[in-house]
């Protein structure tokens, strides 16, 4: 959680752009990462990230602090944007998708600068595609963004128990592809 986050939010609510800018600087990599994995496309991830923060800035007045970091609310907005994105995309198959699986998992040089990292990102993105949307979200928020179960439950509007169950099923699914995966030794 960002230092003095509550004060920044309160000032931003009163129209202080600089304060919102600080929130943006802190959270944009997390939201972008989440959207990049969800969409498999750098440009789409950038467009959606932009939409998430425009939406957050314009609707900040409706935000009420419920004990969770501001990121919980941002992830909620991002998840809704992803749902809308796939709803619209059903009728618009991109050339990238038509090119096949290899192209779909292409990773741009700007994101993965070394080959080893690019290969790992490709591999995990491919594995995440085997999971349901909820399972992907839990894995990303829990292990990549290190959110607590309570925060994830708040984002997904589910109980903590339901989130743990989704995570368990996701790990079982991933174990089929990564036999060495030990649930007790996930950092």
């Amino acid at each position, binding site marked *: 959680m960002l230092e003095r986050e509550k004060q920044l939010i309160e000032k931003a609510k009163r129209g202080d752009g600089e304060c919102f800018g600080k929130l943006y600087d802190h959270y944009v990599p997390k939201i972008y990462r989440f959207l990049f994995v969800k969409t498999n496309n750098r440009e789409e991830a950038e467009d959606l990230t932009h939409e998430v923060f425009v939406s957050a800035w314009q609707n900040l007045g409706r935000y009420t602090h419920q004990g969770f970091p501001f990121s919980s609310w941002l992830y909620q907005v991002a998840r809704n944007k992803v749902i809308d994105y796939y709803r619209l995309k059903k009728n618009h198959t991109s050339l990238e998708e038509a090119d096949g699986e290899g192209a779909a998992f292409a990773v741009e040089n700007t994101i993965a600068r070394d080959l080893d990292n690019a290969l790992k990102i490709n591999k995990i993105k491919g594995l995440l595609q085997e999971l349901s949307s909820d399972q992907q979200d839990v894995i990303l928020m829990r292990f990549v963004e290190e959110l607590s179960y309570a925060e994830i439950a708040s984002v997904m509007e589910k109980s903590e128990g339901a989130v743990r169950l989704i995570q368990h099923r996701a790990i079982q699914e991933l174990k089929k592809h990564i036999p060495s995966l*030990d649930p007790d030794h996930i950092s």
Partner: protein
Amino acid sequence: MNEFNQYIESLKRIEPDAGFRARTRNLIMASGQRNAIKEFGRGFWQDIAFGTALVAGSILLMLVGVMYSYVNTNTLARKSFNEEDVLKEAQSLEFAIELGEAVYFENSADAVAAALEQISKSREAN
């Protein structure tokens, strides 16, 4: 570090392009924030405008209705006072009266003739 953790670490290294970050930040700051009071005000005036338009529309419809019925009634009244129609009606009435007279005369002619003959016979006898 196990294989899965390595994958997760690779995901953590994903960063948005610096140019994109700066561009989006500037665009958001330039877009301005939605002001709740202004939004309410705009909504209020929009509602007022809509209500006024609805009332004006209703009045217009009523006026059209009134004018239509006025024009319609007037046409009917004018039709009933049409000179040609009245003349035609009068002529047909006269014709009906004449026909009635002809029938009367035809029926009474024989009786009148017999009475006149009887009167002339009685004068001759005297």
